[in-house]
């Protein structure tokens, strides 16, 4: 390294030192410390005591760990494809040359910038079994069959589907990314397909989708990571609809006990920081594994398409 390069390095380090210190103190250290704590009996106020793999052994035997994982995978398994389909569909529609296109784009994007708490309160009302908007629409349709809309968040069978439906509310971000992807599809491909007699649906399947496949993969992976970390909406809405004081237990009957909610209560109600750290690392491994799988599958499909 020349003298000039050394000087440049020093300057670079000096300029980035604040970020490096911040990363080390507020990200790297907690990540490494929590890995150590995951092998300890640790309650935040008392010193950690090494307990080997006990926390991980307990996780395997913990019925609630599996229940929360099942709930989370159920949510992710349905909300990610649904969100992807809705966001992509909206993007395709909003990519058409219609009057007021910008206004429609703004309208569909706006929900994604509404704060989580505010939208959760709104959806609490929408899902109210008696006075809510959802049953206000469903009940007249179901009435001829002698049926009534479900109690949604107060019913263990419908609480997760309610949250999945709500997740569509925040697809604005993905929609914008899809829009950008759609605008990059070469127009001549559509023209060639049209000349070949392809219908609109065939053009979408055989032209649009293959070209924007990397964008779909990116959005799907991001949505998957977000779904695995679902917390705020479920925490607020399960408490709001079935409030049991301080329980934070995915009410009713733990039907909305998602992984991060169980992790949170374990850490901050039961003060089992070691166990919660082990849960965090297991979630990290699961999410990383699913992300790798999704990326691998999408890469394979992209290669096939090409």
């Amino acid at each position, binding site marked *: 390294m020349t003298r000039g390069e050394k000087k440049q390095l020093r300057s670079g380090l000096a300029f980035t030192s604040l970020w490096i210190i911040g990363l080390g103190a507020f990200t790297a250290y907690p990540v490494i410390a929590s890995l150590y704590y995951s092998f300890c*009996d640790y*309650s*935040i*106020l*008392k*010193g950690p*005591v090494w*307990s080997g793999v006990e926390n991980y052994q*307990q996780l395997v*035997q913990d*019925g*609630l760990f599996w229940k929360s994982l099942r709930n989370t995978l159920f949510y992710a398994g349905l909300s990610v494809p649904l969100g992807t389909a809705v966001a992509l569909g909206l993007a395709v529609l909003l990519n058409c040359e219609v009057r007021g296109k910008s206004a429609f784009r703004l309208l569909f994007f706006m929900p994604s910038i509404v704060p989580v708490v505010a939208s959760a309160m709104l959806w609490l009302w929408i899902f*109210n*079994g*008696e*006075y*809510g908007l959802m049953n206000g629409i469903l009940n007249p349709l179901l009435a001829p069959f002698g049926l*009534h809309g*479900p*109690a949604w968040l*107060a*019913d*263990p069978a419908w609480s997760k589907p309610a949250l999945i439906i709500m997740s569509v509310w925040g697809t604005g971000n993905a929609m914008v990314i899809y829009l950008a992807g759609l605008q990059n599809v070469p127009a001549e491909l559509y023209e060639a397909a049209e000349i070949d007699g392809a219908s609109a649906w065939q053009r979408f399947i055989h032209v649009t989708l293959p070209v924007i496949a990397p964008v779909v993969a990116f959005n799907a992976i991001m949505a998957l990571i977000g779904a695995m970390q679902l917390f705020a909406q479920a925490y607020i809405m399960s408490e709001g609809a*079935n*409030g*049991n*004081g*301080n*329980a*934070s*237990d995915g*009410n*009713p*009957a*733990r039907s909305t006990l998602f992984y991060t909610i169980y992790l949170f*209560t374990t850490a*901050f*109600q*039961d*003060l089992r920081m070691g166990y919660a750290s082990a849960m965090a690392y297991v979630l990290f491994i699961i999410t990383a594994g699913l992300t790798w799988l999704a990326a691998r599958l999408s890469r394979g499909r992209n290669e096939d398409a090409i």
Partner: protein
Amino acid sequence: MQIAAGHLPPTFPRALHFRLSPKFPLCAALVLAALPAAAAPVHVTYWEKWNGFEQRAMQAVIDKFNASQDRIVVDYYDQTGEIDRKTLVVTAGGDPPDLAGLHEQNIATFADAEALEPLDGFIEAEGMSTAQWLDRYYPIYARICTHGGHVYAGISTPVVETLYWNRTLFREAGLDPDRPPATLAEFNEYARKLTKHDPKTGRLTQVGFLPQDPGWWPWIFCDWFGGGLYDGHDVTFATNKANVAAYAWIQQFTKDYGLDNVKLFSSEFGPWASPSAPFFTGKIAMVFQGCFYDNYISQFKPGLDYGVGPWPEAVPGMKDFAMAEADVLVIPRGARHPREAWEFIKYCNSTNPNAQTREELQGAELLDYLQVKLSPLKVWSPFFTNHNSHPHIAMFRRLASSPHAVCVPQIGIWMEYYREVVSSFDRVRLLDATPEEALGYSQQRLDASWTRYKRSLERHGQWAALGETPR
């Protein structure tokens, strides 16, 4: 114009001349150093969960305490929401407030986590034994303040939960509004008579009682049925048959009303502290609520014709059963001014037993008078006794002193336990499981948790000192 110090015009005031002199800082430092240490008051930081009228009441007590001496100033900081978690995190971070207003169910967990200062030493420094100190409270509140043989808290606000009923709905159902159900059998009968269905749809329009409203303390039905959650050694959620019977009773309401009916009917309920709360709208005729409920009735449903009475006898001979709760004052470990914080706890847990006027009220009685609640202490002053504006204060005093008053067990895994109770409660009332299945599942989990918890205390060298936790 610039005027150099030392060259002031003759008309310049002499005092200002001195102030502007370059020698001033040095002189001031010398003078200050020579003076005896000024007796500046110690500021005690106090975190509390209240806002609204409860905060204003506590502020009045603080003002009176601050004015009563010149050594300590208590500063109130509103920490509405999650005060337990906030206190825990700052205590772990080594910068806790001097005082924190927690809930009684936090005491055992926080004490076992070594997050609280025991108050025993402070009490003994007052020339009292802890037994003498605790003997001043009604026994149930004395129990709330202690864990593992140590005193960890003083009471800020005591609560007693009991039966509230809608007298108008009683009349409409042909029941005597002045005679609440005296036994469990009567309670069930009243509940049935007070329940109405829409004749066309069959849907519920009014119920006598619904166990999940308000749903904050589903464990209390176990104690009411003569059961219990902890015997001093082990968790007894499913092993105590009275608990299973209580949950079977809970399930019977859903079976009688119909599951879909209950789900839809309860969807109509507004928040408990709002005009659309089911008791206020006449959808539910009987609820178990705390002595604070009268304040909310007068706020959200003024003019409601309601009655307050003891819990019906679920176990023959167990009269005046009651549930007690309390907001508590604790000193987090590592507090900067524990002695001064103790002075305020002491003040809030003492009274002027001879108070004849509002101005003479002190400490606990002043706070409880302003919050329209009862005092946790056995001795009440003449003014507090005769001028308490709570319309049913005599009833709550009777229940607080009852030997059958119960509170949450002081057990370190309470939050985990509570979640299991809530989960079993949900499963049972939603007909998802029989009481035996639901409680049995929770018992298995709690047994494992309790074993793990004791092992953790042993690892940290605490179990021997703590021993078996008294019930």
